[in-house]
């Protein structure tokens, strides 16, 4: 595929070279939820699009899931752990505030002395984390980065609130990003709207996720398509030329409405929410990893990643598929 991304510094770039994902083994169906709370499979599928979600075991942490996904991505890259010099984890659900998840993952993988930091921009986190790793590589501050999105939303879900508990799931996805003499990651288009921040929130340390679903839906379906288009424009590509569109898996109706506005051609549109639920910052790398594993995206083909959610925040970039 003849497609090239704009370079910022001549001869210097970064590419996503390998991916991996991990989901907890326990699958919770809509039927199981319907037996516990007042909802139905039909209601959940029509409003949110979810059929199943994976839920972590009580003792299974964000760090465990992040590590499991990172192990797979590292294996797929063929790199030794010692080659990694930057680890970043997008998460809004760490169990403890410190040490951060990134240092714990690095320790578990025996990665020696990497730059290691967490990023919390909720559902847009993976695209933010990927951008910072990309920038670090372009600046010469790193050569091989592990970029991870991992969430245990089940800890922060009110399992008696039928408007939210049907939406979320747990999981992790990881990418290895390496320095390259050609550019494989396009310019990030990122931003936020803190004025609307309270539409998606956890109000206290022992609180649970609350959302004003209609407001979030309105924002997502009216404001985001132009931003996704802008990420394509910055990358010098038309949406019609994309091989895949991997938006945050917020709600299948949001995914389909944004996809419908972009003027995509034959692009594969990620709809992993159907089997995985909304996994916040993990949703994009999980969906990308799965589609790549299933060989639904040709190597080197242009893929638009687009995260959006709590904050409200958003970030997107076009990458060359590994």
């Amino acid at each position, binding site marked *: 595929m003849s497609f090239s991304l704009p370079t910022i510094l001549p001869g210097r770039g970064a590419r996503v070279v390998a991916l991996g994902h991990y989901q907890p083994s326990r699958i919770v169906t809509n039927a199981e939820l319907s037996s516990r709370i007042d909802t139905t499979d039909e209601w959940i599928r029509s*409003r949110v699009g979810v059929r199943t979600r994976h839920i972590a075991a009580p003792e299974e942490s964000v760090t465990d899931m992040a590590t499991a996904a990172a192990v797979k991505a590292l294996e797929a890259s063929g790199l030794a752990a010692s080659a990694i010099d930057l680890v970043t984890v997008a998460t809004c659900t760490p169990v403890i505030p410190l040490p951060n998840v990134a240092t714990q993952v690095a320790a578990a993988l025996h990665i020696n002395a990497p730059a290691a930091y967490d990023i919390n921009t909720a559902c847009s986190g993976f695209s933010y984390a990927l951008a910072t790793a990309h920038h670090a590589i372009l600046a010469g501050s790193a050569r091989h980065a592990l970029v991870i999105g991992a969430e245990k939303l089940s800890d922060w879900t009110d399992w008696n609130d039928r408007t939210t508990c049907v939406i979320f799931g747990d999981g992790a996805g990881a990418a290895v990003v390496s320095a390259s003499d050609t550019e494989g990651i396009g310019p990030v288009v990122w931003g936020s709207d803190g004025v609307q921040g309270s539409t998606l929130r956890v109000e206290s340390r022992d609180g649970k996720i609350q959302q004003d*679903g*209609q*407001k979030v*839906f*309105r924002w997502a*379906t*009216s404001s985001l398509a132009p931003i996704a288009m802008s990420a394509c424009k910055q990358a010098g590509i038309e949406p019609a030329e994309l091989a895949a569109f991997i938006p945050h898996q917020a709600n299948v109706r949001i995914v389909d409405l944004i996809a419908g506005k972009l003027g995509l051609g034959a692009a594969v549109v990620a709809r992993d929410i159907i089997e995985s639920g909304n996994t916040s910052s993990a949703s994009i790398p999980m969906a990308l990893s799965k589609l790549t594993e299933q060989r639904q995206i040709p190597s080197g083909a242009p893929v638009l990643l687009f995260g959006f959610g709590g904050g409200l925040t958003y970030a997107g970039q076009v990458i060359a598929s590994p």
Partner: protein
Amino acid sequence: MSQPATDAEIRQGLAEILEEIADVDPANATDDKSFTDDLEVDSLSMVEVVMAAQDRFGVEIPDEDVQQLKTVGDAVSYISKRQK
């Protein structure tokens, strides 16, 4: 829109929007019908209907006002007033 739409044109336009977004039979989209109870427009589809109506009739319909629009007739008179 240079000329404000008449109530009949707004009603017709809403019926078309409702058909496209929520599969509502246009013959059923009469003033007395409740969006949620009679026409079975769910809350997210209602958001889509409102956004489509904004574009079509060139009016702003903020979230706070959407709650008050219970029936097709409510929406027709709201849009009609906002246009002028």
